[in-house]
């Protein structure tokens, strides 16, 4: 029997990983580096969101309304008006983008100009990660921040959690559905759809695909590859920001924890990269699928192992599961899920499926 509560929290966690893996893959496909600092961008965004929401709540004299209202779908609690949450989403996205662009323009691009190899670039992202962590530490221990976040939201900056202020639904049957579940699931679907439209139905998408496939050739065709890379970084920062926003409201989903200068970035960094690698580091849709896969696997595989071995602490080994999946992927299918789907055998299988209007044997 599938426990709905486990499913909803796991979906939230899996969506966060999908967002992070997507961000990591976007950067790998363009700038050709594994951005170690990526999960920390989410923390920056989370703090930004919390700060702006706190300031907004104070200036608009908002008070949390934790009284559930009876509706047709059950008891719904909406602590704050939509504008409140909107402020958070925007702040998270903007700051995610800013932190990402600073990394690109101040650090990575100059290094690339000096001919840095992948190792130096990776280490540079590590250094940026350290600096961000220190900055976040200084931020969350700052007096002004402490006071801003405590009134009226009563948040602790060093262990930030806005789960209490999330929209929630309790159905007739007693099932608890967190607002973040709906938000993160909808976001994952919408993002995948939007990316598909962008990449395959717009001119910009064509330019992006060309720039990723063969950057010098794209230049020859008059495409400003530099600008495309900047757009990739903006998208990467935005997805990190959205992930941070979700993390803020879902501090107990999967391996997520209350926000601090180190959590949950340090805990989930390996899982995020696992999602990217398992999906196939050169595939945007692969990364989304990979992140979702890792997220669900961490919970459900450990659950399965727990049932088999009877070992109650099995859930602690979630990260071991991710690592095992990565190891298997690298050993047997190094191009990830996307690579598997693109293999000749898969193509033959897929081309047998009748799809109206699709020409046989061609295309991507």
């Amino acid at each position, binding site marked *: 029997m599938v426990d709905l509560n486990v499913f909803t929290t796991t979906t939230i966690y899996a969506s966060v990983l999908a967002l992070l893996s997507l961000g990591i893959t976007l950067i790998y496909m363009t700038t050709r580096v594994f951005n170690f600092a990526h999960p920390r961008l989410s923390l920056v965004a989370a703090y930004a969101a919390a700060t702006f929401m706190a300031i907004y709540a104070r200036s608009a004299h908002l008070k949390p309304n934790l009284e559930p209202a009876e509706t047709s779908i059950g008891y719904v609690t909406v602590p704050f008006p939509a504008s409140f949450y909107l402020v958070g989403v925007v702040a998270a996205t903007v700051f995610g983008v800013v932190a990402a662009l600073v990394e690109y323009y101040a650090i990575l691009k100059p290094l690339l100009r000096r001919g840095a190899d992948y190792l130096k670039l990776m280490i540079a992202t590590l250094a940026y990660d350290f600096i961000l962590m220190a900055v976040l530490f200084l931020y969350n221990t700052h007096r002004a921040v402490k006071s801003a976040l405590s009134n009226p939201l009563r948040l602790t900056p060093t262990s930030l959690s806005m789960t209490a202020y999330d929209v929630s639904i309790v159905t007739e049957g007693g099932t608890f559905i967190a607002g973040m579940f709906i938000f993160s699931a909808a976001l994952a679907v919408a993002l995948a759809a939007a990316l598909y439209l962008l990449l395959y139905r717009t*001119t910009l998408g064509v330019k992006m695909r*060309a720039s990723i*496939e063969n950057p*010098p*050739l794209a230049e*020859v*065709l008059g495409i*400003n590859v530099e600008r495309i890379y900047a757009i990739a970084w903006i998208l990467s920062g935005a997805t990190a920001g959205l992930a941070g926003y979700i993390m803020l409201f879902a501090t107990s989903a999967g391996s997520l924890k209350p926000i601090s200068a180190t959590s949950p970035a340090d805990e989930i960094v390996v899982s995020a990269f696992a999602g990217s690698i398992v999906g196939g580091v050169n595939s945007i849709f692969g990364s989304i699928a990979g992140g979702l896969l890792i997220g669900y696997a961490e919970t459900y595989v450990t659950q399965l192992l727990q049932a088999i071995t009877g070992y109650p602490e099995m859930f602690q080994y979630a990260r071991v599961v991710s690592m095992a999946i990565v190891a298997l992927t690298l050993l047997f299918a190094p191009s990830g899920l996307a690579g598997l789907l693109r293999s000749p055998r898969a193509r033959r299988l897929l081309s047998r499926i009748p799809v109206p209007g699709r020409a046989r044997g*061609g295309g991507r």
Partner: protein
Amino acid sequence: MEEPIIVVDKVNAGYEKLQTLFDVSLEIPRGKITVIVGPNGAGKSTLLKTLFGLTKVYSGRITFEGRDITRLPPHERAKLGMAFIFQLNNVFAELTVKENLRLAGHDLPASVLEERIREVFETFPRLRERLDQKAGTMSGGERQMLAMAIGMIRKPKVFLIDEPTAGLAPKLAREVLENVRKLNEQGYTIVLVEQNVKAGLEIGDKGVLVVSGRIAFDGPAAELLARKDLAKMYLGIS
């Protein structure tokens, strides 16, 4: 005499801190085939890449149709009318011939694009046969053909071609150079870097010899070919 389409004026260039071109001055005549030859590592490819903006220019000036393009990024030069054909990876290997040509005309109105594709097929009929074939699976010579076709879609004024016959068997190499000549017949100015000196200079109008990053000869291709002393010393022909 007609104005040269590209003028290189006392250019010093290289890759980051490594300088490979020293005080290079050169004129590319419009509508002709200019062939750049020289020993390995002399700077032939660097010169070509410098014309397109792929290297770092320390000093000097490059103009295109009178306009200073020294600091202009490559994609802007492409928009002005320069086409660069790389030695390797010069087509989108994962895409079909048709998709490559469509991609080449990504910013053109559909009717114009269709028209240009038809023109391409007139010059290179073999590509029409390979329309749905993945570019990466074509032979070296066919890929060079496609690379030129991609350039043609954009109706540039100049083709900069980097060692198109490298790694090809002699028969294919001749075919490729024949295609270069066909391009020139359509009115395109060609700047060609060629390893195969004799064959290159034979189709060329102007010949340029680059040795150790400097111009050692700049004049009619036939004359360069006839210069036994230079040929023996630098090009290994006797």
